[in-house]
């Protein structure tokens, strides 16, 4: 691109400066400052630091002995695994099914995608009503179906994990579904016709033709899902708040918020945020390596 039109460089400044000033002030600078903050001693949001921690990496040692931190890390990893299996897996299954039907594919797409445009806060409230101990939707359903006597406590130590994960999985299946359907539509019908001549039909066709051709799309979805799982906050916060039950349901995001806002340990919160970034980078690198895009 070197048209005479774009040889004079001064307009560049007008075009680029506003956006990059914004990025520098509200993204790059805070990002670096946050790493620095994790070595400082800050006792309140919005207040200045009172010197370095003693030793400066104190918060990172604290993480090792903090049982809530272990819980948060474990739950975030479970969230990541569940995202791969349930969000991406279920979406792939549904997309393969919708690829086989003649009518109504658009309708399913519209319906499945809808939860994504709804704020997770509203969904959290909705699921709180569904999982309510005393007379929630599920407990009423179970009572009428199985005639069970007692109510299930969905936020107890036994069930809290499923209660926290289900709405997050449920909300995002439609997102990956749409990406898969777009990928499936890009496979030309000639490939299928040729496959049919060779006798590949039904499940054989799915495993030997469709899935290999869908590889790149699948990789994109996996990378998105894995890196996105660390950022989940709204739904678990509205449903589980401060680690209900008994500090068992913390995620890295919710624990970081609680440390910054409710417990006033701002530098510890910064250190947790740094950990989230490091994990995110590792996840992205590993998944990019594992699911490397191929050109056909």
């Amino acid at each position, binding site marked *: 691109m070197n048209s005479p039109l774009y040889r004079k460089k001064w307009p560049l400044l007008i*075009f680029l400066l506003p956006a990059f000033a914004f990025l520098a002030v509200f993204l790059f600078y805070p990002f670096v400052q946050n790493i620095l903050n994790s070595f400082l001693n800050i006792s309140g949001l919005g207040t200045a630091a009172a010197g370095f921690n003693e030793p400066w990496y104190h918060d990172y040692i604290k993480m090792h002995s903090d049982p809530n931190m272990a819980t948060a890390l474990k739950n975030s990893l479970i969230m990541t695994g569940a995202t791969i299996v349930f969000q991406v897996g279920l979406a792939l299954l549904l997309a393969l099914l919708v690829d086989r039907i003649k009518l109504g594919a658009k309708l399913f797409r519209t319906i499945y995608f809808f939860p994504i445009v709804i*704020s997770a806060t509203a969904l959290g409230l909705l699921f709180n*009503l569904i999982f309510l101990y005393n007379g929630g939707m599920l407990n009423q359903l179970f009572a009428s179906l199985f005639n069970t006597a007692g109510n299930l406590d969905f936020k107890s130590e036994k069930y809290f994990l499923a209660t926290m994960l289900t709405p997050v999985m449920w909300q995002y299946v439609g997102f990956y579904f*749409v*990406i898969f359907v777009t990928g499936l539509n890009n496979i030309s*019908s000639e490939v299928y016709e040729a496959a049919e001549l060779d006798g590949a039909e039904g499940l054989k066709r799915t495993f030997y033709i469709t899935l290999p051709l869908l590889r790149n799309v699948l990789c994109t979805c996996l990378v998105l899902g894995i890196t996105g799982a660390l950022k989940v906050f709204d739904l678990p916060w509205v449903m589980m708040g401060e680690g209900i039950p008994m500090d068992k349901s913390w995620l890295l995001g919710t624990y970081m918020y609680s440390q910054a806002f409710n417990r006033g340990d701002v530098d510890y919160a910064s250190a947790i945020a740094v950990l989230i970034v490091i994990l995110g980078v590792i996840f992205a690198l590993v998944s990019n390596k594992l699911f490397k895009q191929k050109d056909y």
Partner: protein
Amino acid sequence: MAAKAKHSLTHIRRQKLPQLLSYTMLTFWGITTVYPFFWVIINSFRVKGEIRSDSFSIPWPWKASFTLDNYRVAAARADFIKAYTNSLTISLLVTAAVVILAGLAAYALVRYEFRLKKYIYGLVVASMMFPVFSTIIPVFRMEVVLGIASTGKRLLSLLSVVLPQIAGNLSFSIIVLMGFIRSIPVEIEEAAYLDGCGPIGIYFRIILPVARPSFATVSIFAFLWSYNDLFTQMFFLRFPEERTITLLLNEISSQAGVNYGLMAASVVLVVLPVLLVYVLLQKNIIKGLTVGAIKG
């Protein structure tokens, strides 16, 4: 064509059972997506006490279980109009700023050749990976020092949310717009240049009109992201008159106690407008939220 028709005819005969199975499973997931919304709508019209014992029947207006009380209570106890005004103010400002800044930056990054281009582009891509957790605390401190956050003044507080949200959306929008602007043939611009039009004029008279669909995509994404975000808003907005829709819901979920009718009505008041917009614009919305994922 004839060959194709014959092909699908044999297909239909052979695939009747799998088709039926596909429809069954797809419909099942469709129901799990739609029914929770339907359930919360019917229960928002139900007499308070009955939600926990008989939540599956439809409270038709002529039945004794029908009531509008939940909406009356919601209107009396929570200022939904104020919350909508706050939310829309924030989201519209974010959307406008993102479209203006990202458009100019994307145009420059595509059309100009300059020394640092590669690094600047790399910086934009990398900053998409910054989770909001890792920048929010320094941004908060900075805005307190600048006198934007925690002032108790409503408009300033709204601005304190708008600024980091703009930064959070910029990189993604730049990448999406770059993809589109790259596909516009540069010859049109060169012709305009020969007619005496400068790069700024070209941006407004050629790029902007031609790239309108992708600007729509970016605006939808920025708007929904900002509107649904709970984390940033919880950080910056503390006072009742600054409350946005998501904060209001979060408040209701922790303070409504056992008033489940109020919760159901509040969810409906938040979901319904989005549902209407979604039905009208669903094609653009679905594209808006997935295009970046596929390209990026």
